[in-house]
């Protein structure tokens, strides 16, 4: 896609955009889970973000987008030695993809035709240093989701099969989307996504008209439309780059740690992942806003997306967990 729909031109869906920008600032936050209706711009946002992100330096032809020649994995037969600029990779993982395609497997073609034992890199390798986007993640087979989350967390893909023993870096931001009415994710998996947001079709006419207007303008003149939004996109890009630089310098006051713990205790979220993600997301938010230290406002801004999917929930409880988080935030952070 040469002209992706500009990220800044997406109408509304602020929580989703915010979550994606935060992961672009600090990939360590973990993946983003976007749950909601069809046709709400989930995939558009992912592609738009990729187009907006600064390019990466990678060795030409390297299957895992290695940064320098020294870091190319030894199994990869990379002849080129040039380091080129590449757009941030965004890899789609289609439903029904086999484990072989995802993690990589023995290269059958080489094995049968030439009798060589070679490794054919999978989608995880291609997504290294970028984004892996899974539409309808809730319909993906459980064992694949397990595998993906494992790799996303460890940042390394280990393949031990068919006489191959191979490992390569696979650091990517996992973006999953889906419609909860068509099936749910196991709570264990929910917990391992860093952030989660709910998107809904806009309900008021004005917003809907605005969406249609922009989309139609984009269709009629791609290059022109992208150009007219280039400035807004560039502003976000700049903010992300500045925030990345500022991130290590953002201070974390003791009181904020206390707040994080108090909040997670009040919500009864399991484990410590909630606190950690909340803290990282708040830090990224602070860096994005140009603050020198994390404040309660930053916590407030990210608490719903960092915690709403971690509540120990009654499987039959339909009340929105986002509402519960907001309520707790109000009572704890007074």
């Amino acid at each position, binding site marked *: 896609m040469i002209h992706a729909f500009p990220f800044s031109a997406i109408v509304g869906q602020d929580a989703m955009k915010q979550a994606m920008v935060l992961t672009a600032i600090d990939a360590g936050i973990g993946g983003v889970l976007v749950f909601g209706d069809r046709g709400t711009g989930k995939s558009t946002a992912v592609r738009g973000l990729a187009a907006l992100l600064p390019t990466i330096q990678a060795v030409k032809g390297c299957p895992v987008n290695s940064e320098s020649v020294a870091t190319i994995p030894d199994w990869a037969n990379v002849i080129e030695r040039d380091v080129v600029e590449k757009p941030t990779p965004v890899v789609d993982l289609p439903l029904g993809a086999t484990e072989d395609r995802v993690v990589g497997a023995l290269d059958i073609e080489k094995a049968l035709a030439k009798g060589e034992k070679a490794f054919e890199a999978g989608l995880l390798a291609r997504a290294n240093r970028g984004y892996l986007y899974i539409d309808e993640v809730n319909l993906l087979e459980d064992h694949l989701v397990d595998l993906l989350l494992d790799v996303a967390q460890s940042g390394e893909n280990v393949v031990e099969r068919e006489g191959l023993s191979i490992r390569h870096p696979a650091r990517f931001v996992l973006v999953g989307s889906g419609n909860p009415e068509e099936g749910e994710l196991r709570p264990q998996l929910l917990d391992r996504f860093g952030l989660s947001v709910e998107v809904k*079709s806009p309900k008021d006419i004005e917003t809907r008209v605005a969406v249609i207007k922009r989309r139609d303008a984009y269709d009629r003149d791609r290059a022109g439309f992208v150009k007219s939004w280039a400035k807004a996109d560039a502003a976000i890009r700049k903010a992300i780059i500045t925030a990345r630089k500022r991130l290590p310098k953002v201070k974390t006051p003791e009181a904020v740690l206390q707040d994080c713990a108090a909040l997670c205790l009040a919500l009864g979220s399991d484990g410590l992942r909630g606190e950690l993600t909340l803290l990282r997301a708040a830090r990224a938010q602070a860096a994005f806003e140009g603050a020198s230290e994390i404040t309660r406002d930053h916590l407030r801004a990210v608490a719903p997306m960092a915690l709403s999917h971690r509540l120990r929930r009654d499987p039959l409880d339909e009340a929105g967990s986002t509402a519960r988080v907001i309520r707790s935030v109000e009572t704890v952070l007074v």
Partner: protein
Amino acid sequence: MTTPQERWGNINLALALFAIDPAPLGGIWLRARIGPARDRMIQSLNNVLETDILQRIHPNIQDDALYGGLDMSASLATGRPVHTAGVLQKPGPLVLTMAERAEQGLLARLGTALDAEQGLSIIAVDEAADPSEGLGRALSDRLALHLDLDGIPHSVATNLEFDLPALREARAHLPLVQNGPDDDRDLCMVAEALGITSLRAVHHALRLARHSAALMGADQVEQPDLQLAVELVLAPRATQLPEHSASEDQDTPPPPEMSEPDAHSDQDRPQTDGEDMPPVDALIEAAKAMLPPDLLARLAATRAARQSKGSTGTGHKKKGNHRGRPIASRSGTLGGGARLDLIATLRAAVPWQGLRSVSSPKKPKGLHIRKSDLRVKRFQESSDRAIIFVVDASGSSAMSRMAEAKGAIELLLAEAYARRDHVALVAFRGHGSDVLLAPTRSLVQTKRRLQELPGGGGTPLASGLKSALQLARLSAAKGMTPSIALLTDGRANIALDGSANRTQASADAQQMARAVRGEGIPAIVIDTGARPTRGLDGLAQDMGATYLPLPRADAKSLSAAVEAALPLP
């Protein structure tokens, strides 16, 4: 409602508009059983698109056919890699036959290919017999035109006629066509009134209106173009009637031509904000004329299936060669995610090496491996369990212990959730039974349906069991292991034919119960009456089911009993 002639005319027009520039419209969702009307239509598609032959794909198409890949048998025969081109790499319309059988994975791939906007368009031919199956929304949402050939008789389906030179002119003219300033707003409001949430629909309508204007040779989209777009794109997607008084709508079919929109604007005003304009009302009227008369009935029928699992007719297939306990590999071809068992393949090839090197001296070095040597891995996996709850919602139940029965179901649901079972819900009351929910894992849905469950009327036990049995067969066909949990408090008093005949009713119930046992479906009968009902244990025996009177059962023993009665697969 429009006549078949008018509908056929509309289809003719729709195809012409589609042919002007297929790619931006995404494609056509064609609901049609095999018949002359469909054949004529596909035939004329060839003419109007000016293609020699339309590329066809089928639901079981493999990835290498879609995207191109290595031709394994040709590669083995020649000893060098031979690649094939994929159908998605060529622009132009594709016909997806038997679209109702397409799996989520294929739909997702096709949807992604359409989103890439490389000139691809898809004509999905859906032969679904039942509203509960049909093309999945992942794809249907991306196709602008939804056409239904149902009810168009042979005599009406004449040859479709197209003015090809005019279409070519329109194609050239299309980039110049402008939309009016308020078109998008009008269409948004119509979509709102029809209960269409997806914004893609509005967007498609906007594009189709431009196609229509181009066909007219106009530079500006006018009201008739919008009206046509509403009729062809928005009306088939309606999920509600524009007005909320459905009764009045049935006997007063409004005329499609709106000469005086103002006269109707007062009573026909949809429940949006107060500033909508006459053109919107006219458009809504146009949409209403196109709505199928049985819209509400159809919606009710599709809702149960649609909301449970994205509405495809296929279920979770058993992936015989992906995971589970490994079993012996067998010969077969690669593709479709099958994994090569290298050792077994080599073992199969070894005995022939001597012979083959003699017979094909051109390839002296290396192993000689033929297609027949390939062995693929196989795995055995146990299937998912589907628990079908058959709930008695008759008068006596509703009065006495409905709440407790619901409590018991919720308890079982929570159990099912923990084990990732599929859950289906059948309720029987009055004169028949309803499938409230096809097998799903979404508990939110199940609980909502349960809460909405109305009560009252007779006890058509046989009908409830019959629906459950059908559902059980269906889920077994989809690779699940069904079991039935029947919750009732009384004896059957409505027979299968709907008559209130107690003797016949209990004979029917007994027969259905035996049928359940005959199919070998594990079952449990939970007696929700205030005291154990006489005769229900006999029915349980007929079903080969465990009988459990609820009065004596607390939550714990209930779940234990269900666990014991419906064993894990």
